């Protein structure tokens, strides 16, 4: 229970949480104090002076502690002699504010007139016009006319590109510094700054390449005027014409809540299309932010090369077929191959698709082989035990919490989690970054553990051993609810603890959150890593509570959902080792990611691929089924924190493409399965009835919304952006075993398997945010952000091979041979070549495969 303070606003008494900002406190009770520079997600600076109010405090008698009273019984108020900025005040008992006196109204009027002195008033063509705080506040509080002559306005540059994504209009800027503060304070990227002074003050980008941050789009949302606008939406539509459709980002496991602003467009055949993507407020997930990949990476849904019709290969040619033929053909093949069919689900399949795919697979045999792609990470059982506590808010995490990020380059794999951890570190949370190489997260903490690739499990085991030796184990939990602790303890005995400082940072914290990735780990090693993380969390008692537990950084938007519904990466591995005669692949592109998978698919007897594009996998198919993108259909995704979230149909259909669940159910009906469900909601109802953890997750509960604080999407609009308001649902997070007091928790020793390094130089594939994956490549606007194909070499290895940064090199790894650029930047550990996935066209070699690198002489 937070302490409350009693304050007076406009002669009314209110109870508000003690110590919060005065603007927020007033807003809680529906009293608007207009602001430009203040933003509830940032420190206040008091630059714009829009929030001027009369401020005072109730005079208290020092001896008695009672308020002094006037003759009429009202308390004596000591007023500041001049108006004060409300945004720089925190409330406490006895704060008295007047927000609507003549003096305050005149001050607001004057400030607005001043701000508008050189504003071009080009609202009719401004992308912000209609959802502009400056426009709104001028209408509400501003002067009807100006004392200045129109021609005296300063004319500045109107179209200054800050990088290729964001345009700056210098005339419109009111120098509130929200954008520079966002980049400096929240993100920590030194990319924007003020240049010059006084009337010449202007925003400039000081990085090369310009505006080099993965979060640049957020500055356009928080800009209170139309000074920063995106190149993506430029003149796309007026805000009042847009139809906001709640959706979920299909790119990474964070599951950012997004709002797709849609409008019908003549250029898209008169169908509804996504004009822009804005973040949608969900304080439990992405707050009000999203990364540039989520914001600008939506063009794949209406790319010109989307697959439009089902196709069948006949004599080496693709022949267009209708759906009925496709269903019939596939059903007869499934009947023929029955048990020898393998099913593979991609990371963008929704829970409904996954469920129907499983239903279809079960019609072919009792124990169908259900694999998930990418098969890089596992640990569904561990997550079900010790996944992060329900209702964890990363934005509340402070000094009492330690966060361990292991084997993940979080900024590349889950940018919003990176952003939230960076801010948690600023608030005092202890962050431990463990990886074999330097990552950008290293800069937010002093506690960095750099281990050798292959030692990740050993590091976690040593932390657990340290917990035992320091008696930091949770006796209550171990005595009552944990199985297998004796084995674990025996295994940990005598374990050396090389990073004792880092271990102590975790052990001394009240709460511990572990983010686990899979960089440099095989699937078997990753299983052990997840177990080691679970061991550590369980024996120290950091499970089953808010702000405690394990977060897997899955390699896709809905890998968690796939695991929940019964697909597994182990099955994928077995499918590749012992390939089935028939493959049924939905939304996955294994041939582009993995050369062994490509080889296996090429030799398969019959391959069915559901795809949006003619991917490497689709090219090997016998039948291609065009699937709808996330934009055209309804569904649910389960994010890395196990929150099931709903997305809605935002865009008109493309060609004959259908949602995956429809396709699977229709094929199933031809295999004597049940009648196909009529809606995605009906599929979800079936899931709630059969998957225990999803009970109570019907579409209406997923769509439930409640008021969130801070209120940035309300009607007053002074924080900017029409799309922040969340009308689509906050989602529902399923509870882990640890949260059920009657459930047993299991620990077991995590095995350390050293990787087999087969050469002096070996390859470690890593994930990049901006890659050439099929869902990102169609966004032309982002192309300049996608690096040219490169490999990273250690400086010593490079010196041996006389390779310098930027040289062209020929890399040979087994059958794979590519020419690429070499980067020697101190990131790669010795003996390792970092291979960014999906950057060079063609599959990445297997982990730790030996390679040779040769410089190409110019």
């Amino acid at each position, binding site marked *: 229970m937070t302490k409350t303070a009693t304050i007076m606003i406009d002669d009314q008494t209110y109870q508000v949480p003690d110590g919060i900002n005065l603007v927020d406190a007033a807003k809680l009770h529906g009293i608007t104090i207009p602001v430009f520079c203040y933003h509830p997600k940032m420190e206040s600076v008091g630059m714009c002076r829009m929030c001027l109010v009369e401020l005072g405090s109730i005079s208290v008698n020092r001896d008695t502690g009672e308020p002094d009273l006037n003759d009429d019984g009202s308390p004596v108020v000591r007023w500041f002699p001049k108006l004060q900025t409300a945004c720089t005040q925190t409330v406490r008992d006895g704060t008295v504010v007047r927000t609507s006196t003549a003096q305050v109204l005149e001050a607001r009027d004057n400030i607005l007139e001043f701000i508008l002195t050189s504003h*071009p008033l*080009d609202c*009719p*063509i*401004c992308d912000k*016009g209609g959802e502009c705080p400056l426009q709104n506040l001028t209408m509400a509080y501003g002067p009807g006319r100006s004392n200045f*002559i*129109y*021609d005296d306005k300063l*004319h500045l540059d*109107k*179209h200054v590109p800050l990088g290729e994504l964001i345009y700056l*209009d210098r*005339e419109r800027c009111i120098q509130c510094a929200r954008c520079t503060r966002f980049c400096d304070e929240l993100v920590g990227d030194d990319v924007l700054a003020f240049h010059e002074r006084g009337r010449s003050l202007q925003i400039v980008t000081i990085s090369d390449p310009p505006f080099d941050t993965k979060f640049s789009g957020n500055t356009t949302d928080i800009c209170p005027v139309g000074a920063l606008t995106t190149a993506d939406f*430029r*003149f*796309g*539509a*007026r805000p*009042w*014409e847009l139809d906001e459709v709640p959706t979920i980002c299909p790119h990474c496991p964070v599951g950012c809540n997004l709002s797709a602003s849609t409008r019908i*467009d*003549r*250029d898209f055949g008169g169908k509804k299309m996504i004009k822009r993507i804005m973040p949608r407020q969900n304080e439990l997930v992405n707050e009000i932010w999203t990364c540039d990949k989520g914001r600008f990476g939506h063009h794949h849904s209406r790319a010109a090369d989307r697959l439009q019709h089902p196709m069948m290969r006949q004599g080496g040619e693709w022949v267009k077929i209708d759906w009925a033929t496709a269903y019939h053909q596939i059903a007869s093949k499934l009947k023929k191959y029955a048990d020898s069919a393998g099913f593979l689900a991609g990371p963008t399949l929704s829970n409904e698709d996954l469920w129907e795919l499983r239903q279809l697979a079960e019609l072919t045999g009792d124990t169908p082989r259900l694999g998930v792609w990418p098969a890089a990470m596992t640990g569904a059982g561990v997550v079900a035990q010790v996944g992060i506590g329900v209702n964890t808010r990363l934005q509340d995490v402070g000094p009492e919490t330690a966060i361990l990020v292991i084997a993940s380059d979080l900024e590349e794999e889950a940018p919003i989690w990176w952003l939230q951890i960076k801010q948690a570190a600023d608030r005092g949370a202890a962050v431990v970054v463990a990886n074999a190489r330097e990552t950008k997260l290293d800069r937010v903490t002093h506690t960095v553990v750099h281990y050798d690739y292959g030692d990740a499990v050993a590091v976690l085991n040593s932390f657990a051993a340290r917990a035992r030796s320091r008696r930091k184990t949770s006796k209550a939990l171990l005595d009552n609810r944990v199985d297998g602790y004796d084995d674990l303890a025996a295994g940990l005995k005598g374990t050396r603890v090389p990073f004792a400082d880092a271990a102590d940072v975790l052990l001394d914290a009240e709460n511990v959150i572990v983010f686990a990735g899979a960089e440099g780990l095989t699937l078997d090693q990753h299983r052990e890593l997840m177990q080691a993380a679970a061991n550590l969390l369980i024996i120290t008692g950091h499970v089953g509570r808010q702000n405690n537990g394990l977060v897997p950084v899955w390699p896709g938007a809905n890998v968690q959902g796939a695991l929940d519904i019964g697909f597994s990466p182990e099955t994928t591995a077995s499918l590749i080792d012992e390939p089935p005669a028939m493959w049924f692949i939905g939304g996955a592109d294994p041939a582009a990611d993995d050369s062994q998978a490509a080889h296996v698919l090429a030799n398969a007897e019959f391959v069915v691929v559901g795809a949006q594009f003619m991917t490497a996998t689709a090219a090997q198919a016998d039948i291609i089924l065009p699937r709808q993108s996330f934009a055209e259909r309804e569904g649910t995704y389960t994010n890395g924190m196990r929150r099931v979230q709903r997305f809605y149909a935002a865009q008109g259909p493309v060609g004959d493409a259908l949602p995956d669940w429809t396709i699977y159910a229709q094929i199933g009906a031809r295999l004597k399965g049940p009648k196909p469900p009529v809606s995605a909601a009906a599929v979800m109802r079936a899931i709630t009835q059969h998957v225990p953890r999803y009970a109570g997750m019907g579409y209406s509960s997923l769509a439930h919304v409640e008021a969130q604080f801070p209120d940035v999407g309300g009607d007053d609009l002074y924080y900017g952006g029409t799309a922040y308001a969340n009308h689509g649902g906050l989602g529902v997070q399923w509870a882990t075993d640890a949260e059920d007091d009657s459930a047993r928790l299991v620990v077991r020793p995590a095995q350390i398997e050293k990787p087999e390094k087969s050469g002096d130089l070996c390859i470690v594939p890593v994930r990049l945010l901006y890659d050439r994956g099929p869902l990102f490549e169609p966004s032309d606007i982002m192309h300049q952000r996608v690096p040219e194909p490169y490999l990273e070499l250690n400086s010593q290895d490079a010196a041996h091979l006389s390779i310098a940064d930027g040289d062209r090199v020929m890399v040979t790894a087994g059958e794979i041979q590519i020419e690429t650029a070499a980067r020697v930047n101190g990131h790669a550990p010795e003996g390792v070549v970092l291979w960014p996935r999906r950057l060079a066209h063609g599959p990445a070699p297997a982990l730790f495969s030996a390679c040779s690198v040769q410089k190409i002489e110019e």
Partner: protein
Amino acid sequence: MNLINGFATTIKHLLERPVTVQYPEQERAVRERFKGRHALKRYDNGLEKCIGCSLCAAACPADAIWVEAAENTDEERYSPGERYAKTYEINMLRCIFCGYCEDACPTEAIVLEHKYRLSFHDRRDAIYTKERLLDPPPAGAPDTPWVTEPGTFDRAIPIMQDPD
């Protein structure tokens, strides 16, 4: 007496010139403020006045106007500002000729003129596209789009007179 009055009125009108005109061979002149079919106007130099701001569509009580905007470039310039109307359509079946679009227009680009002969053989023909609405360029002025020198047009909206 009433009978005489009645016949007198009849006889008086028999001797008057008929008010009927032989439409469509003959057309009656309309009043200066008559609100007929819209036209999209141009500046004297031939550039389009419309900046694609959609305020006409927002003001339209019948939802008859559809605007899609795009950005002018120096290689393809339609209007002097940064923005022009890529698509401009008015559905004349919906239009109630109230003239709110004209009032809302910040550049005086859309004007309800005196043409009122609006009949269609097809519902689709009732949708007047930009090509049908746009006035031809003034004598001697080139049609849009233009190719212009970089830096010739660098304002967001055309420079207008002091509104006072």
